[in-house]
Structures are given as C-alpha cells and as structure tokens.
C-alpha cells in the first residue's frame, strides 16, 4: 500500500490541486503560503531530527535567501529561477558564519542562532545601499513564462514551491537512508561513542546545517519573487521561525512528510479559522498546539497516522 501512496499523492498534488483550485487565486495563494512554511519546516526538521539541533533562527536563512535572490535579480538581472539556487547558496554561505555555534550544546546553539537572526535583520535594515533598508524593495522580478506555463501566476508559483518542497523532502529521505543517516542516528544516541569509531560528527552536523540553510534560502528566494516585495521586518520576521516549528512539531519532525502535512494543516487552520475568530494574537493557538503536542504526542501526528497505515509494524523514528 505504501508503494502507491507517494506517487498517488504526487499526482494529486501536481494535477488535481491546480485543476480544482486553479481558478481561485485566494485559495491558491493560501496553499502556496502553506507550502512555503512547509519547505522551511522540512529544513528545520532535517536539522532537528538528523542533526539533533533545535534552531530558533531559521528566519535568518529565509531572510538572507530572499534578499540574495531579490538583489541579484534587480541589480544584475539574474533570472529569478537561477536566483532560487543562488538564494539557497547565499543562505548556505551565511550558515558558515553560524558554524562556530555547532560546538555549543542544545539550548546554547538554539539561542546563538536566534542571535544571528537578529544580527542579520539589523544588518539588512542598516545596509540601505544594497537592501533598500526599512523602506524595502518594490517590484522584485516575477517568475517567467516557461513552456506556455505562466510561472508568475498563483498556479505557476504553486508548481514551483511544490517542486521545491518535494525535492527537499526527497533529499531528506535519501540522507536518512544513507550511511550518513545511520551515522547521524548513532550520533543522536551517543555522540562520544560515535566519534570514537571515527565518524566526523562535527563535519556531519555542519553539512546538515548548511543543507537546512540552503533549503530555507531557496524557499525564501521563491517567496521574494512570488510576492515581489521585501522589507527587513518581513523577511526576517519571527513568524518564519515560529510557524515552521509549530508545523514540524504538529506533523512530526522525525518523519519526512510530517512537517509538510503539519504546515498545510496549521497554516490553513490559522488563516481560515483562527484569524477570523481572533484578529489579534491568533498565534496564541499555535502556542497551545506546540504545548499540547509536546505533552500529549511529542512525535507529532504523522507517527500516529503512519502506525495506523502500516498496521503498527514499524515505529517511525529516524
């Protein structure tokens, strides 16, 4: 059954969803925004599950990625699709600056990354020559029309972000199955023993951090070209950290698809239900979800659903 699940889901995602909602820009915009959160959530979960590191600063990588691509396309005329990769590259390079933090233990790493996010945000605000400062960047180039598909439209954007999320999740799944994944799992259980048998644990962690930053940067670059507008408070907003964490925890950050499912559920609920019920402070509900999930089912929803699907044979754990 599981062999058909992924192809079927992909077929639905690539064909059925655009056919069903393509005519409704509002719904399509919501789904794109949810997948944007989902992409960051996958990157966050990759770092948390494989690297064993909690980050409260993914907004930094998101912001750097979006500014890199936006500035390159506006000043140097780099095409937006190439800008996606360059945005990811920019975020990965920025993550090198954060790598000294890898030698810190749990909470110290989490908060050092948070400090980096603040620093990057302030730098983006102050470097007015490049980033336009607090005034922001207007009319960032949109995605082109390719093979008769207008990628700049809502549906085109959906296809791009869906592809980014699918590729990221596939990369995550491949690493988890590889020898690296095994080494990372061993490291999670006992790091010292793993180092003793010759696993370069710091290098592995650094690679996971760079990859997580790369994915987040690509998602950030996508978002910049999709909404065509950037300002520092938006690009580095704490929401780019809070929502993905809530999504990953809700869906299950130790699974590959949990963060994506979590993002779709949480973002759509948040926008369609909670925002209507309470215009101010609707993140309250996200906080409740986080607390509730950690206390009741720290593995998230995906393992519960997965166990039901697989008849309880395997325990979903990285």
């Amino acid at each position, binding site marked *: 059954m599981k062999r058909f699940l992924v192809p079927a889901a992909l077929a639905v995602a690539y064909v059925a969803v655009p056919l069903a909602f393509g005519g409704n820009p509002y719904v399509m915009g919501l789904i794109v925004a949810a997948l944007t959160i989902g992409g960051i959530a996958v990157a966050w979960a990759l770092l948390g599950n494989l690297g064993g590191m909690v980050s409260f600063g993914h907004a930094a990588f998101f912001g750097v990625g979006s500014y890199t691509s936006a500035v390159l396309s506006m000043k140097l005329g780099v095409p937006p699709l190439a800008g996606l990769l360059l945005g990811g590259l920019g975020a990965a390079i920025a993550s090198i600056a954060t790598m000294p933090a890898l*030698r810190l233990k*749990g909470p110290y790493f989490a908060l*050092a990354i948070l400090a980096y996010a603040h*620093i990057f945000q302030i730098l983006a605000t102050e470097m007015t020559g490049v980033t336009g400062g607090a005034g922001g960047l207007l009319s960032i180039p949109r995605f082109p029309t390719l093979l008769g598909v207008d990628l700049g439209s809502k549906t085109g954007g959906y296809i791009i972000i869906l592809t980014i999320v699918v590729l990221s999740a596939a990369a995550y799944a491949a690493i988890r199955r590889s020898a690296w994944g095994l080494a990372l799992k061993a490291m999670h259980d006992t790091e010292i023993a793993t180092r003793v048998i010759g696993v370069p644990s710091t290098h592995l962690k650094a690679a996971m951090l760079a990859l997580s930053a790369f994915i987040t940067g690509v998602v950030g670059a996508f978002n910049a070209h999709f909404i065509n507008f950037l300002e520092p408070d938006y690009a580095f907003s*704490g929401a780019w950290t809070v929502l993905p964490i809530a999504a990953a925890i809700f869906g299950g950050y130790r699974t590959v698809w949990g963060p994506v499912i979590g993002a779709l559920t949480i973002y759509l609920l948040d926008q369609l239900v909670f925002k209507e019920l309470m215009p101010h402070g609707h*993140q*309250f509900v996200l*906080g409740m979800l986080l607390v509730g999930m950690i*206390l009741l089912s720290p593995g998230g929803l995906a393992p519960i659903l997965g166990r039901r699907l697989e008849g309880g044979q395997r325990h979903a754990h990285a």
Partner: protein
Amino acid sequence: MLSLTLQALFSGVLAGGYYAMVAVGLALVFGTMRIINLAHGELVLLAAYVAYAAESQYGLNPVMAIPFALVIVGASAALVYALLSRIDQDREINSLILTFGLGIILTNAVLMIWAADIHSTTAPWFQESVVVADTLFAMRSEVVFFVGGLVLMAGVHGWLNHSWQGRAVRALSSNRNAAKLMGVNPRRTEILSFLVAALLATFAGIAIYTGKTIFPSLGHVMTVKAFIITVLAGMGSIPGVLIGAVMIGCIESLTVTYVSASLQELAGMILFLVVLFVMPSGLFGGRKAIAR
C-alpha cells in the same frame, strides 16, 4: 563628551539592575532543572501588565500592585513547572519547544487582552527626575528599583548561601544525585527555584513598567537578554550575573548615545557571540562548560 559618557554609563548601570533580576531568575531555574525557560521573559511581561491593569482600571499605584502580580506570576511559574515536569523523553529538545510555546501563549494572551499599544505608568512620582552627583540624571523609578533590586538580590544571595533550602538549590545545581542522597527533595527544590525566579521577575516587571515602556513583544526581548547575560557571566553566581547585566546595560546605552538607537540590540548580540566563542564558560563561569 565626558559628561555624555558618564551619563550613558550611569543609565546603563541602572538598566543593569533590572536586567540582573531577570537573568538571576533564569539562571536559578537553569541551575536546578538544566532547562532554559524560554517563557521566563514573559513572566516579567505579565507582571508589568498586571501593574498596568491595576493602575489603569483601579487607579492602584504600581507598587501596590506587586502583591497581585506576585500571585499571578507565581501561579504562572508554577504552571510552567507543572507542565515541564511532565516531559519524559528527549527532555532537552522538548523542554525548549514547550517553554517556547508557553512564551508564545503568554505574549499573545497579553496581546489579546491589552492590545499592542505601548504603555507606561501615569503616576508622576516615578517619572520625576533625580539628580545624582550634580550632573547625572535619572528617573526616580530607575533609582528606586535599582536600589530595591540590589536589596532583593542580596537577599536571594544570602538565602542561597545560608539557608537550608537555598543550599539545597545550589546542591541540586552542582550534583543532582549527590543532593538527593543528602536528603534534598528535588521536586520541592525545583519548584522553589521557579517561585524565587517568579519573585525576581515580578519586581523586574514593575520596574520596567514604572521606568520604561511596555509592549507585548517585550517578554521575548527580556528572555533573550537574560540568556545573553547569563552566558556572559556564566551561570555561577549572583554577583557575576549582576556584573554581566551592568556590562550589557552600559554597552547598550553607550551604543544608543554614540552610534544609533537602532543598533542597541546588535551590540549585546555581538558581545554574546564573541563571549560564546572565545570564552564559552563566561567571564566568571568557572568550569561549568556550555560547549564541548
């Protein structure tokens, strides 16, 4: 130039007083539970808004609001503890996320009840200026709460060093199992550390409300600041935390005076990263390493 620098340093020292109250609470809880309570700054925020509610709705002086704030903040801290103690697997990651979530809940509860506006006390007594040594200016509330904060922290310091319960807190911090063997009740001691942290957070909240301005995202800012101070000072001692807090306060106010107000937070952050990488156990941290 010199008088400007002196004034900046003076304001920085006064700010360091309430920063220290927040940071000592964070360090106490970290000591007993090995958990960074990411909702700690939100307890400060809660105290400040209780004072605001008491003043704006019942015309109560902020100082008179302290007992109410103590009850509410203490109860919230106890609730945070009760939830934290239910975590049994992946304690490090899950406790971070749990307290992060609790912080979001408290911030947004404040936002829903009192909206996003900026508030400060309306009692003029607190905001009258006080002149120290002919040239240094401060608001009366800053001086009052700085002195009050020092007295309170001296009390906590004495309690930690000389009372049985205080020694139990320190014993639990240095060696959990040995402390248990010596008859320390870990749960009671942990909750005690939470309540003392709540007491300090309450005073800091009232100090901020009377001397500065309050707004819902302040809680998060205070958590980060307290964490930076404890990294700077090491988690070890109250005098160390006080010195770290004063340093952060001075660096911030010097940045505001000579560079730009928008870079205030940046200065502290950069100092934090430098200390993390150069002296990972803090300036006065002893051997309690935070890095490998």
